[in-house]
């Protein structure tokens, strides 16, 4: 896929979607209510609940995976599209309503201050009151420490998918992005490549419908092992001079 180098559009909001029929409309309408006029690029990752049909009726760009590939792959497809279409900035947010669109201007303001990527955090400032189950909170702390040790960047909420990034980061991630649990290893990878990463407090909400991808006990068990291994491999690839 040839990626165009010119930037001819200001920004886009990329939303990966998998079985979010009950949350989608509210998420898109809330973005529009905030007078955010950027294009919304949705990537349906092989939903089976009617999400794709609903997306066709909403004022968004729809990219459809014919089969389910996983959260990371959906994000990567959205980034590829955004880069190819010439967007200068990309905001990543989830379709489940947990990310509050009114926080997007804050992310962009932090980006303007010189960061390459800004993470919206549940663990900073006033947003620290957001309830995260104990085990998950411990996991986030552990991976935050791992990201700091391996990647040299202190990010408290390494699992946050609420992010704003410049085109250079989007271009990099469009080429190399983990299929599942793109958390600490992405932070480490960006940190090792000297991208400037910032983290700001952001309000989050509990999802109203559906379940999180971390709720599956098998995936929850697999997650820490995969993330630790992937984090070290990122470091090893850098040391060995590969991407």
């Amino acid at each position, binding site marked *: 896929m040839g990626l165009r180098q010119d930037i001819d559009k200001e920004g886009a909001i990329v939303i990966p979607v998998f079985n979010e029929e009950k949350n989608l409309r509210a998420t898109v309408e809330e973005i529009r209510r905030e007078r955010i006029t950027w294009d919304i690029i949705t990537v349906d990752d092989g939903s089976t609940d009617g999400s794709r049909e609903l997306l066709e009726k909403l004022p968004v760009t729809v990219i459809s995976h014919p*089969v389910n590939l996983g959260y990371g792959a959906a994000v990567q497809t959205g980034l590829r599209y955004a880069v190819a279409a010439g967007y200068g900035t990309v905001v990543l947010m989830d379709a489940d309503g947990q990310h509050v669109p009114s926080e997007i201007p804050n992310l962009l303001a932090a980006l303007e201050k010189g960061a390459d990527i800004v993470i919206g955090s549940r663990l900073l400032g006033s947003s620290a009151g957001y309830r995260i189950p104990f085990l998950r909170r411990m996991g986030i702390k552990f991976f935050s420490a791992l990201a700091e040790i391996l990647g040299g960047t202190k990010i408290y909420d390494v699992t946050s998918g609420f992010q704003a990034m410049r085109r250079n980061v989007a271009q990099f991630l469009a080429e190399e992005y983990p299929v599942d649990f793109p958390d600490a290893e992405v932070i480490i990878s960006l940190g090792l490549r000297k991208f400037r990463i910032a983290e700001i407090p952001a309000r989050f909400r509990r999802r109203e419908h559906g379940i999180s991808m971390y709720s599956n006990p098998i995936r929850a068990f697999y997650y820490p092992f995969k993330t630790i291994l992937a984090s070290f491999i990122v470091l090893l690839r850098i040391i060995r001079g590969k991407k």
Partner: protein
Amino acid sequence: MSFQAKLIITAMALLNGLFVMELLRKRKLSESYTLLWFFVIGAVIFFTWAEQFLFSLTGFFGAITPVSTLTLLSLLFILVMLIFFSMKIYKMERRIQELVQRLALENAKRNQRITP
């Protein structure tokens, strides 16, 4: 090992070879995998008849009986094959992901959603 046992093992191995050939003929197996299985069948027949070699190998490994040596070799072979097929599956997964993403992006383009 008795002569009768050797004959039975050889016959089973050859039947397996015919089965693999049939799979190749029906395009259910590639030439490269067929060659791999021919190699395995050849090894089974070789170890069945070259008893002296198997005894030497048993001594080399420090195993007690030739059966232990065969078990060890079989396990090693299975392990190597599992790693090989894991690699193959991963490679396929990557290709499928790339294809699905490209298809999705091309469809989006075709719907005139990307500025030409």
